[in-house]
């Protein structure tokens, strides 16, 4: 492994959901809303267990755009977790970020990338980066576990210091591919 990642194989370095959770915590994120994805399973559990955070399950992803705007009006920082299929659900609500300049931090686990076994996940997954761009949301990419802390901190700074709208796209190669085989 080249570069400065001196402990790429340590358990801590590879526990990327914990690294994202730590980044959110250090960036003082208090409200974490989500529509579940298997790729977010551990991060959702960490946020529910964290007494400094309020975890808010949503019925649809666009609710999280409104929640984050309300949190900011009240002086709190929020993050929104979803899979790429949910990005399309957010389109009109993203008006809040584009028109009012509300900070927005989205963490999007990608479906429909390399090795996807459900063809219904492919159209929205493939359109996700461009759909976000059209709606005025910057995208950052997380492809390797050891980069999770640095990239999540960067995304949070884009949201809360630049006061921009940003989506951190978490690559399917990092999460793994859903197998659709019976668990035994």
């Amino acid at each position, binding site marked *: 492994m080249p570069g400065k990642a001196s402990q790429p194989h340590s358990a801590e370095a590879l526990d990327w959901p914990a690294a994202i959770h730590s980044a959110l915590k250090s960036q003082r994120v208090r409200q974490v809303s989500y529509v579940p994805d298997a790729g977010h399973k551990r991060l959702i559990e960490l946020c529910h267990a964290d007494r400094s955070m309020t975890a808010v399950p949503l019925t649809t992803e666009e609710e999280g755009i409104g929640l984050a705007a*309300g*949190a900011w009006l*009240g002086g709190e920082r929020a993050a929104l977790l979803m899979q790429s299929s949910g990005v399309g659900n957010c389109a009109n609500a993203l008006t809040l970020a584009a028109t009012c*300049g509300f900070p927005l931090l989205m963490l999007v686990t990608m479906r429909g990338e390399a090795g996807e076994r459900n063809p219904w996940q492919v159209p929205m997954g493939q359109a996700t980066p461009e759909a976000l761009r059209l709606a005025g949301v910057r995208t950052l990419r997380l492809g390797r576990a050891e980069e999770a802390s640095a990239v999540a901190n960067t995304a949070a700074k884009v949201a809360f210091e630049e006061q921009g709208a940003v989506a951190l796209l978490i690559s399917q190669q990092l999460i793994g591919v859903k197998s659709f085989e019976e668990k035994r």
Partner: protein
Amino acid sequence: MKALNRRAVVASLLERREGLLVVAGLGAPAWDCAAAGDHPLTFPLWGAMGSAAMIGLGLALAQPKRRVLVVTGDGEMLMGLGSLATIGVRRPGNLSIVVLDNERYGETGMQKTHTAYGVDLAAVARACGFATARIIRRSAEVSDVRSGIYRSKGPLFFQVKVKADALPLVLPPRDGAHLKHRFREALLGAQ
């Protein structure tokens, strides 16, 4: 029975508003709040239809010591129906939602909404776990709404049946960044 006048209802809820934080759904509810007096702690929406209740939830969670009121319309609430279920998970005691229900999409030609066909929003809110969820039809009940939103443990939901008449436009500022900044400055001080 004559339905209520929406402007009179909103005026009575927002007079002597103490530290109340208000989110106004787009269209007539935003105009009603503006008619009651533009205020930095009112955040009126001009778009993002369906988001009003969720903005109220985020605000209520961030400011647990302040009372938060969402004033919106039946069409806007219908578009964000799932947010009632989401509020039902966290159940913030300081959040109230008042739906001014004229059974019409007032900004687009007065087409009937689902409530005109009998859909019962208060029953949905009750089923989602709101502490109080009522339909309000009489002016004598408006004082119950007022005392609820300022003092009762929420979340509270009031579906207020109002007349479907088009009233003179009273518009709040429409610059979203300005609305956001003035709200935060009034609530949190200079940032």
